[in-house]
């Protein structure tokens, strides 16, 4: 086991400013815990065949790690020590097969996986046995499993995403959380989101400098910007005005209620800076990962999972509160 304590930047970021709807400054000097990360596991290296380019990841209560690999189209399982414990899937359009595996989440019973080309969510059990497909109204752009019978999704829309849909296990929409009324256009309102542990959601916009907390379908608790709030420029490609940079990549929550937002191109260290926020959205500190990641996943034991080696490695870190 490699022990590697990461560097982190604890200084407040002068460039960060309060965003729309923010009553006060985004950052204030407060007595807060100082966080550090200690590497406790690494899966996949440069010379093995474990991972080629992983995308989605989830971890069960026992610490088993499930991951989708878009190079060989497999769903892979590793035990808590990182040893291979199974794989399934493969290239194809059949049940449980993938053409472009993307998102993954789980509950105590099921794993929920998406394919970029499939309008639905594939359900597997923890033994990697394919169960069924939950059909969705559109291609899924983001996913969070809330319980064995509740899934939250956002869908891809040519006119712009605007809502988180709460669906049951049959794909029936139970409720709809409209997080924006603007509909800025294709991709521009895309978000990463995570359940906030209080029945609400944390939302990080991928292409806007904006992080929000929602306590109900029409109840935004706060909204803040962290990189100056300037809009992301767009470029016309194929008839679409597409954003040219990312603001945030992912959002996660630990057991203490701290919020971890992975910064995109706007961050000082793109894909490496993890903004740690308190429950009100104020910055606690910035953790800087050694390598860029596309996601930041935190399991039930406050262990952070990120990408390394351009996607051929999973690194797991214990979050230490000092």
């Amino acid at each position: 086991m490699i022990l590697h304590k990461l560097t982190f930047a604890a200084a407040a970021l002068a460039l960060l400013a309060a965003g729309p709807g923010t009553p006060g400054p985004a950052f204030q000097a407060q007595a807060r815990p100082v966080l550090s990360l200690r590497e406790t596991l690494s899966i996949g290296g440069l010379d093995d065949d474990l991972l080629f380019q992983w995308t989605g990841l989830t971890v069960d209560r026992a610490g088993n790690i499930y991951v989708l690999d878009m190079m060989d189209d497999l769903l892979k399982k590793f035990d808590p020590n990182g040893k291979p414990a199974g794989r399934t899937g493969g290239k194809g359009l059949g049940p449980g097969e993938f053409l472009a595996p993307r998102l993954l989440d789980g509950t105590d019973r099921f794993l929920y996986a998406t394919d970029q080309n499939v309008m639905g969510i594939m359900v597997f059990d923890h033994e990697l046995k394919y169960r069924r497909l939950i059909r969705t109204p559109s291609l899924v752009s983001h996913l969070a499993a809330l319980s064995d019978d509740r899934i939250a999704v956002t869908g891809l829309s040519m006119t712009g995403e605007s809502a988180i849909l709460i669906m049951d296990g049959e794909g029936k929409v139970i409720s709809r959380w409209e997080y924006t009324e603007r509909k800025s256009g294709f991709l521009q309102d895309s978000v990463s989101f995570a359940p906030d542990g209080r029945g609400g959601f944390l939302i990080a916009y991928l292409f806007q400098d904006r992080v929000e907390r929602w306590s109900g379908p029409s109840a935004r608790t706060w909204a803040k910007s962290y990189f100056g709030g300037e809009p992301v420029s767009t470029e016309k490609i194929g008839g679409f005005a597409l954003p040219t940079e990312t603001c945030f990549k992912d959002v996660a929550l630990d057991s203490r209620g701290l919020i971890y937002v992975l910064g995109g191109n706007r961050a000082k260290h793109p894909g490496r800076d993890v903004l740690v926020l308190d429950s009100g959205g104020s910055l606690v500190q910035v953790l800087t990962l050694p390598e860029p990641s596309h996601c930041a996943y935190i399991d039930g034991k406050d262990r952070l999972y990120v990408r390394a080696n351009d996607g051929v490695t999973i690194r797991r870190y214990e979050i230490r509160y000092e």
Partner: protein
Amino acid sequence: MSERRPRFRRSGTVLGWIAAAFLSAAPAAAGPPPDPERGGECLVLIDLDAFYCGLCLEALLAFCRAIPAALQESRVRGILIHRPPSAGLSGAEILRIARKKWDGLRRAHGIRFPVLADEARIFQRPEKAGASVVLLDVPGGAVRTFLLPLKPAEVAEVLRFLRQ
């Protein structure tokens, strides 16, 4: 300590949708085996970093499906383009990662053409595409480039060129 649900959840990215406007299916191809004494040759410039976009990856796979295995083996060479050293990764490590990823992709999808790693980083990454096809048109005295995904007419042209 606050209660938190769910205990575990997903991760991933949506950036792959960006190339949606470019996706087009390449037709399956068949035909006589290549004459080893004849035919054009082509390079496929491959930027593996771009394949976080699944549709960019699919464009390359569609090209591979369109080119018969015998033609891939005899007429096509891939060039792995990789980025310069960056945080935490040396140039040598990035090169090894690129080779590993390609090996995984090749085995999973039955890609037959051999690839070379551009150690000196001479080749440029294809602009606005994950890969491009470069026809070495010696008789025509030209190097012709197609960005993936190829349109059906472009696939047909590449096939004609490889079989000429």
